[in-house]
Structures are given as C-alpha cells and as structure tokens.
C-alpha cells in the first residue's frame, strides 16, 4: 500500500501561556477517509483542529497536506486551500439567505461589480441538490432546522472544493433523524473522495460512519486504530487513560475506601428530562453519603445537576428533596432549601474575579449576614477568617482579589462559599478539574469529611478513579439516561467503563 495520506500532522506542540495543550500530537487522514477524533475535555482535540485550520499557530511539529507542507494563516485561508471546518455552533449568518451564506465572501459579480443573483441562486440550488436538499435558497438560513443549516455549511465547504472537512461535534444539536441525514451526507462526501475528520462524544455514532479513530489524551495522541478493531470499552479506557489489564490499582486519590454509614434519603430524582441532553436521569442521595455521577462528556451529567439546583428548568420527571417534591425555579430557592452547587466552570460560573476572597466567600451568605440590608462586616470577617484557616485557603489577605489565587485555592473559596451556609446537600461538578495534585488531595479529603459529618454529596467527575474510590454509590449516565447503579462492592473501573461504553449493566 503506497497511498500517501492526505493529511499528516506530526509532533505538534502547542502551549497557551505556560499550559501545554498539545505535546507531540499526531494525526493522519487518508484520502476519502472518515477519521474519528475523540478524547475527554481538555485532551487537545479542539487545539489540534485550530492548529490545522489556522485559527492559531503551532509551537512545533510538521503538517503535510496533499503532498505539500501546510501552514494556514487563518480558517479562511485554510478553506481556500481545501480544508473546511464546520463548527459546533454553526458560524453562518442566520438572517441572510441560504444563497448569500453559500457565496459569502466570494459573491459572483458582473463587470460593473453588481451581484449576479440569478446565477448565485442557481449555483446554490444545484449544490444543495447534490446532497438531496431541496429548499428555497432565497429564504433566510435561520428559517431552517439545525440539520439543514449543517447541510448548508457542508455544501458551502464542499463548494470551496474542500478535500478535507472537519466536523466539530456536528451532531450534538441534532435529533436522531437529522443525524441520519448528516451521516448520509458524510457518506456522500466520502464517495466523492473527500476526507472527513469527525469529532464526537457519542461512541455509537463513530461506529456508524467512521473508518478509523484517533484518540487523544492530555495533549498527546494515544491511539490510532481501525474503527472495527476497537471495542467501545477499549475506546473509553483509552480516553480515560486506564489500562484495561490493570484497572485494579491502589489508591490514586485521597478518598479513604472504608465503608461509610449512610442516613435517610435526602434527594431522589426520577425520570428527569432536561432539554435535548437528558431524557431519563435517575439517582438518589442519602445523608452522609458521596454519590458519584459518572458518564462520558455529553452524557448529561452537568445538565442533570443544574436542573436539580434550579439553574435550568426540567421538562419531565420528579425531584424529591428531604421527603417532599420540589421544583426549584431559581438557584436562590434551592439555596434557601439547603443546597449548594460548585460549577465545573470556575472562571465563568464560580468566581467573581474582581471581588476579594472575602466577598466571594460570603456571596451566598450575604442576606443572612445582614441586619436590615446592611452587611455586618464584623461577623463577615470572623466567618471568612475561620474558613480561611479551617480549610487552608492560601491568600495574602482576605482582601486579595480572587483572580490572583491559584485554581485550587479558588476552588476552596467556592467550597467555603457553600460550607458557611450549613448546607444539607452539596453538588460538586468536577471538583478537582484543573487543580494541582496537592490541592486536589486536600479537596478530596474535605469532601469526605463533609459527608462523614452527615452532608449529602453529589459528585460529578470525569476521573474514573475519583468516582470509584470516592463515591459510596455511583450512578452512570449514558446519552442522558441513567443506565446503571453501583455501590462500593460492585464499582470498579472496569465495570464503570463497560457501562459508559455499552450502556447495559455489568
């Protein structure tokens, strides 16, 4: 076999500031091949794509495309040279017509510089017809379904004579039927000799449409294989960085694995449906218990947690808290009932960057800290000082702006924000993501201590050992539905990954 790869990326390095995003990563795509690119959050998929399509530069490594060295200056330049990217959020203009969107930036003009509408409309119609899409090309793009908009984006890409189309989570906002149409289109591209890089978190989809798969983890390419050669379980193990033969390893986390006595049920969630992402989530938490919520990216873990906390509305299902049915319309109501929620996105949903440690710590407590609306600053200082000491927040002073703290210390402040409320139930979404090893262990210990003191804890984590070792019970979500429940005796990394991959109980 002497077919040259269409695209060859070798030894790609890229750092943002001091944080390395890609470390010697590689990616090969053959002509007419559909290549799956998978990995967890932060594995480097998006960076890889951005380096390829010229959105950002690379620090090191070589890219060859179509037999020539490749260096795109921008996504637009990449598009002109045959690499088109279709982003998760479609980046076309919803208010302009389909034709205008397809011809955006390369409109057909006559000698006087006026637009030749008729030939443009005809061109657009013919282009879409090749994908069996027959729509009014004069209508605004926003009038059509997301799937059709995707088709238009793909048609636009193809009309640039694309040799390689990159689809970044294209299916995440499509329903089942629309996904079918999209796959049809991908097969058609393949038949025309166009290569596709397909980024998705839904494993089942990969097997339907992809030829090979590239798995990334922590900025490295960790596996490349024929799709048929890898089982779903192998894929999951590979993404999470667990060795299948050696999943039973000793404690990597600071959770003690002793059994813990649990009290009465504090939260029971049944048949919860939230938007498109969650269809049938079920879980329960008892007092004094850490309940793990596991699942792959996009399985609906965060959406489930946000719905419980009242941050998002749910369409169906029931939530019972402390023995009675509840439906919190705002986080404020959930907080008043004794819940707390640490978001996975510290920067955008956790800290108020310009405010001090003191103010961030007491943000939720403020109403209780006031006398007729005026903040009792003496009490505020006492509480802040106590928590800074108790959980070891390292800051120059309580008045230091929180944005100057390290990730681990920011997380501790956010933890303290809830602890000072004396909550009954805390939800942690990725409590240790992006936190260095030392602080991570401290936070894990703290969570355990809280549960031992009688608090109910729901912990979402992508780190499988954190779940296996930390959680007393674990529920696994897959494509928005709870597919399995484990307790300490049954939970193992192998069993969890197996359920994440296949869906049925181990």
């Amino acid at each position, binding site marked *: 076999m002497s077919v040259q790869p269409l695209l060859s990326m070798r030894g790609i390095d890229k750092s*943002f500031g001091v*944080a*390395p*995003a890609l*470390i010697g990563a590689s990616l090969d795509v053959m002509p007419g091949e559909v290549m799956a690119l998978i990995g967890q959050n*932060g*594995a*480097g998929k998006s960076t890889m794509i951005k380096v390829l399509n010229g959105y950002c530069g690379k620090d090191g490594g070589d890219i060859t495309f179509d037999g020539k060295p490749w260096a795109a200056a921008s996504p637009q330049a990449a598009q002109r040279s045959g690499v088109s990217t279709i982003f998760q959020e479609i980046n076309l203009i919803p208010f302009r017509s389909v034709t205008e969107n397809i011809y955006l930036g390369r409109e057909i003009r006559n000698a006087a510089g006026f637009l030749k509408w008729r030939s443009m409309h005809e061109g657009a119609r013919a282009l879409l017809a090749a994908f069996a899409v027959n729509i009014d090309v004069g209508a605004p793009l926003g009038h059509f379904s997301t799937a059709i908009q995707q088709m238009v984006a793909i048609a636009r890409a193809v009309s640039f004579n694309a040799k390689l189309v990159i689809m970044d989570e294209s299916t995440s906002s499509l329903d089942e039927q629309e996904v079918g149409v999209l796959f049809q289109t991908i097969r058609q591209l393949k038949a025309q000799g166009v290569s596709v890089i397909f980024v998705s978190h839904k494993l089942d989809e990969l097997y339907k449409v992809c030829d090979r798969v590239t798995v990334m983890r*922590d*900025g490295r390419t960790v596996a490349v294989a024929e799709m048929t050669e890898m089982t779903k379980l192998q894929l999951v193990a590979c993404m999470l960085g667990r060795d299948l033969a050696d999943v039973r390893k000793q404690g990597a986390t600071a959770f003690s694995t002793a059994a813990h006595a649990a009290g009465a049920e504090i939260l029971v969630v049944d048949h919860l449906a939230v938007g498109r992402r969650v269809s049938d989530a079920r879980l329960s938490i008892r007092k004094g218990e850490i309940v793990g919520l596991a699942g792959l990216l996009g399985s609906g873990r965060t959406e489930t947690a946000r719905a419980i*906390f009242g*941050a998002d509305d749910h369409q169906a299902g029931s939530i019972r808290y402390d023995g009675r049915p509840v439906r919190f319309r*705002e*986080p*404020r109501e959930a*907080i*008043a009932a004794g819940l707390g*929620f640490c*978001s996975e996105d510290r920067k*955008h*949903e*956790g*800290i*108020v*960057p*310009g*405010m001090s440690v003191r*103010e961030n710590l007491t*943000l*939720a407590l*403020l*109403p209780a*800290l*006031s006398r007729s*609306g*005026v*903040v009792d*600053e003496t009490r505020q200082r006492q509480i802040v000082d106590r928590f800074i000491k108790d959980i070891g927040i*390292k*800051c*120059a002073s309580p008045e230091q702006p929180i944005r*100057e*703290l*390290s*990730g*681990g*210390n920011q997380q501790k402040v956010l933890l303290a*924000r809830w602890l000072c409320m004396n909550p009954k139930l805390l939800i942690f979404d990725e409590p240790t*993501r*992006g*936190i*260095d*090893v*030392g*602080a991570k262990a401290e936070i894990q210990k703290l969570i355990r201590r809280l549960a031992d003191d009688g608090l109910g804890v729901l912990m979402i984590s992508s780190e499988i050992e954190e779940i296996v070792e930390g959680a007393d019970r674990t529920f696994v979500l897959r494509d928005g539905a709870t597919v399995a429940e484990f307790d300490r005796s049954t939970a193992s990394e192998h069993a969890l990954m197996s359920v994440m991959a296949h869906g049925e109980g181990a």
Partner: protein
Amino acid sequence: MSVGVESPLAPAPGRGKLTGPGIGQGGARAATILRRFGSLIALAALILLNLALTPHFATMQTLSVNLTQICTIVIVGVGMTLVIATGGIDLSVGSLMAIAGALAPGFFTGALFHGTNLYVNIALSIIVPVGVAGLFGLFNGWLVSHFRIQPIIATLVLFIAGRGIAQVWTNGDLQVFKMPEFQAIALGHVLGVPFQVWIMLALVVVSAWILRRTVFGRQILAVGGNEPAARLAGVPVSRVKRLVYVASGLCSGIAGLIVIAMNSAADANLIGMGMELDAIAAVAVGGTLLSGGRATIVGTLIGAMIIQLVRYTLLANGVPDSAALIAKAVLIVFAVWLQRQERA
C-alpha cells in the same frame, strides 16, 4: 485545559505567588494607585493649574458656579453608576427628566390637582413626578431583566418615547411658573451653598454607602462582575437589575425637577437633552468600569468635576466653548484608554 502530570513535590498552590515580590509588581502597584486615585490626582492638578492661571479662581463664587453646573449631571450620574455597575446602561435618563419636569408644574398651577394647602401641592409636585420617573425606570428594568433585551436597546425605547410622552403631556408648550417655595430646591441656599448642591451631596453619600455597605450594593457588583456566578450563588439577578433602573429613574426625576426649578419654566423639548451622554462621560472619567463589576459613586462626582473644570478652565482663559467640547472628548478617550490599560 489539560492537566499534565505534576510532581507531588511541586510547591503548594499560591505559595509562589505570595512570597517575594514578583517581577513588575512595582509597575502593578503604580497602576493600582493610578486606577484608584487617578481621577483625584487629575482633579487636584486642574485646581492647582487654575489657581496659577485663572484670575479670581479661589472664590466662593467660582465654587458655586461650577458645582451648580454639575449638579444634575452628578445626580443622574449616581443612578447611571449603579446601572453601569451591573453591566448595563441607561439611555433614557434625559427623557425621564423631561417627563418629571413636565408633570411637576401641574401640581402648583392647579392643572393637575386643586389642593388648598400650598405645601401639600409642592410635596405632591415633587413626590409624584419623581415616583413616575421611578416607575418608568422599573419599565426599563423589566425589559432588561424579564425579556433579556440588551440595556442599550431596552432604554432606547424610553429615550425616544419618553420625550414624546412629555411633549404630548404638555402639548409641546412651554410651562412658565413662579413658585419660590418649589424653586428653593434649586435656587435656595443653605450655609451659603445652593440647595441643589446639598441634594447632590446627599445622594452621593447615601448611594456610595449603599454600594459599599449593603447587601444590595454588593449584589449589584456581583451581577456586574460575573452574572452566571452571581445567579448560581443565589443573587436575585433580575430583582437587582430592576432596582438599579428604578434608582436611575428616581435620580433622573429629581434632576428634572431641579432643571425646571432653575429655569422657572418646563420645556419638554429641552429638559435633560443630551444628559445621558454627560452622565455616562462622568461615570467613565470617574473610573467606573463600563463593563460592570467595579463602580465608584464618589468617582462619578469627581469625574463630573473634572469635565466641568476643564471646560471652565478653557472658557475662563478665553478658549471658545466649541474648542472646549473637543477637550472634553479627549478627556473621555483618555479615561477609557486608562481603563483598557489595566485590563491588559
């Protein structure tokens, strides 16, 4: 972000940041000082410059003239600061001033209300128009919080319609009146200082205290600093937003009354014309972050003083008003530039 494998021997988080001054800390400190006291330093420099240049500068007369000039701007600016602190903006302030100004004379001319007691009439002529302006502010807040309309568009509605309402109310006529007891709010003096200056100072002190010490004040800054985080921490984001627009409406109402009291006339076509831009300029020059999350009411007062004093300096030294406008623009550009520097 990907988390590389880190050595457990790595220093504890934050420690590196705390011990020993990092590189460029001196520069950072200078920037902090400039940020906190920059507007104050500028004001002091302007005063010193005038003491040297402008004849008869250090007189009560000068102080009175300049303070009276900025009164309404600062009063409106107080409300504007609160709105901007949440990350919003209120374009309707001038129109709300016109509405309040157009309503008030009706109470003592008898067109709206026939009270026998003069002081009841005057009380009503203050409370009702200010209240109405507050209600229109509530309307702004409702558009912004309930429908999530961008504040600049939401308040554009009343920027346009508000003046129309005032004009329809007065049939576009000038309402001339003479009511010394009412006009005292602008023309009266206490301890030799115009009464309107006292109103301004009271509003500045009270709202600065609210922003600094109350739950509401801290919630305003939290909403402006990071809205999703504030919501997840239980801050009633919608209510906070509604209330700041109400505050802005109330402030505009008060300013509208001062304007008509000074002029002995209410002209719906002119009251508060261009006020939104003067107020925003004062807020920006004063050091409040236009994207929200950091605000200073006293800064707004100083900002208005700086703008006024630059204009006064130029006028007193024979520069025409048209050129003074350019100086004002340069000042605003400089203030915004300064804000951008520290963010980088």
